[in-house]
């Protein structure tokens, strides 16, 4: 990982998504000590509106030997890194650029139902079993998952609260974070309005206009980089058996709601890395919602299934704990760039340049494991 770049994160960028993508990509290429002509591979997220050819032209790239697309949505970022690794190791590309750009607040918003009065579902979407009942947003899906975890394991809102509270404290130290100037207390968390029980306002991610980009190259190239080398120890993708079809709602028909594709992804990732959860110094968990983090901490083996609440409340996930998480503030408090800002923060931790640096950290877990499938990676300081 030789280059990282971002735009500012805001509620109204006043710029096109192509402009945001171009700015983040130029920053990443510059950070790598390269020029656009050095880039010969591009990987995009399927939900991005910026396409490969848009960027080749906008950046002034000279060639495009490798292009790839990964999705759906937040499942993509770690897998996008995997695509870059595969392209480089197989000789299809030399320097691969990954990006995610969106006007997630001023443009199309994820939490708004786009369904009109017409019939929905069919054609393999299975949405006819969900939308007519008023199940319309990812937040409602994860609320049903959270309620099941609370019913089954006795998880309490006061425990879940520690995830958004920790993310907020990290954002308070990060000048780039949307919530840099806004503190959050347990009382404020508990008294905030309920959105879809048991999830309250601060259990939900932010909505963000912004972009992130990264450059992946061969490990030898990292030696020429102006920064401390950051190596990709392992990357993995995974799915649970019987994940159910469709884009987002049918995941509720899975037998065990409280296990995410994080579990099989973790098994593959740890095996490839020759590591286990005890070897991870710091982690960036995909946090569309607080409950998503809690489930992943269980599935990645940092605590047993059902103990995510007490683990979150134990202090382990705070700076100084055994597993500091989301050290840039995450989706809950830094900004929502669909998991890409988690990869960027992972690189910063391994360079030693995070605004909440974990002293002596040499391994960082980055996850992109919401649903239906997932991906994750482990970074290592070189």
């Amino acid at each position, binding site marked *: 990982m030789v280059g990282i770049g971002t735009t500012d994160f805001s509620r109204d960028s006043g710029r096109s998504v192509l402009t945001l993508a171009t700015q983040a990509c130029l920053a990443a290429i510059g950070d790598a000590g390269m020029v656009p002509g050095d880039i010969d591979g591009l990987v995009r997220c399927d939900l991005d509106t910026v396409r490969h050819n848009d960027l080749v032209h906008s950046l002034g790239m000279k060639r495009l030997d490798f292009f790839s697309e990964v999705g759906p949505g937040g499942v993509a970022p770690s897998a996008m890194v995997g695509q870059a690794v595969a392209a480089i190791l197989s000789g299809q590309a030399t320097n691969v650029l990954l990006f995610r750009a969106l006007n997630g607040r001023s443009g199309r918003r994820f939490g708004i139902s786009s369904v009109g009065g017409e019939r929905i579902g069919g054609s393999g979407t299975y949405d006819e*079993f969900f939308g007519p*009942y*008023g199940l319309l947003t990812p*937040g409602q899906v994860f609320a049903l998952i959270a309620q099941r975890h609370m019913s089954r394991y006795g998880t309490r809102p006061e425990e879940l609260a520690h995830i958004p509270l920790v993310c907020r404290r990290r954002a308070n130290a990060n000048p780039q974070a949307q919530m840099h100037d806004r503190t959050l207390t347990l009382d404020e968390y508990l008294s905030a309005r309920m959105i*879809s029980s048991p999830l309250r306002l601060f259990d939900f991610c932010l909505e963000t206009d912004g972009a992130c980009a990264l450059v992946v190259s061969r490990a030898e190239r990292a030696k020429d980089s102006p920064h401390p080398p950051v190596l990709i120890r392992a990357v993995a993708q995974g799915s649970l058996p019987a994940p159910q079809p469709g884009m987002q709602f049918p995941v509720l028909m899975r037998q065990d709601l409280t296990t995410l594709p994080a579990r099989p992804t973790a098994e593959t990732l740890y095996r490839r890395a020759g590591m286990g959860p005890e070897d991870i110094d710091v982690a960036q968990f995909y946090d569309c919602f607080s409950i998503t983090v809690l489930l992943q901490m269980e599935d990645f083996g940092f605590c047993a299934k059902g103990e995510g609440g007490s683990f979150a409340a134990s202090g382990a996930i705070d700076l100084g704990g055994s597993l500091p998480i989301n050290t840039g503030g995450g989706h809950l408090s830094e900004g929502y760039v669909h998991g890409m800002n988690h990869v960027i923060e992972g690189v910063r931790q391994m360079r030693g340049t995070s605004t909440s640096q974990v002293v002596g950290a040499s391994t960082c877990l980055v996850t992109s494991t919401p649903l239906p499938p997932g991906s994750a990676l482990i970074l290592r300081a070189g």
Partner: protein
Amino acid sequence: MTDPRLAGGILPETGDIDTAGFWDAAREGRLVARMCATCGAVLHLPRAYCSECGRWEGRWEELPGSGRLHSWTVVHHQVHPAYPVPYTIVLVDVDGVEGVRLLGRIDGECDLRADQPMHVWFEEVAEDVFLPQWRPSVVEG
């Protein structure tokens, strides 16, 4: 009962080749699940191929119409004009065959507990369109 068709509510596509049988049965007040005709594996959400035995012939199994509450959420933040808040979305494990789970919606805020018994009823939401809905079973005595 309000008519979501008039209120701009969301209607299900009932003519899909893999799922139409579910909606045809609902129109007749029957709750069904797709099963493999050969080995009896549950094919839910409904689909054609059985990965257990490799056959393509399915059948619609009629279910008793009872179940247990798997999870729920009370929606307080409105995202669609035809679904005024608060309302409660329930997720029900259906009795009769293992592995069939369905949604329901209850107006307002419900006092619920996990695994409580639920019963199906059929809501006419448009001409010839019926949604299987779930409400807590009334326990006698």
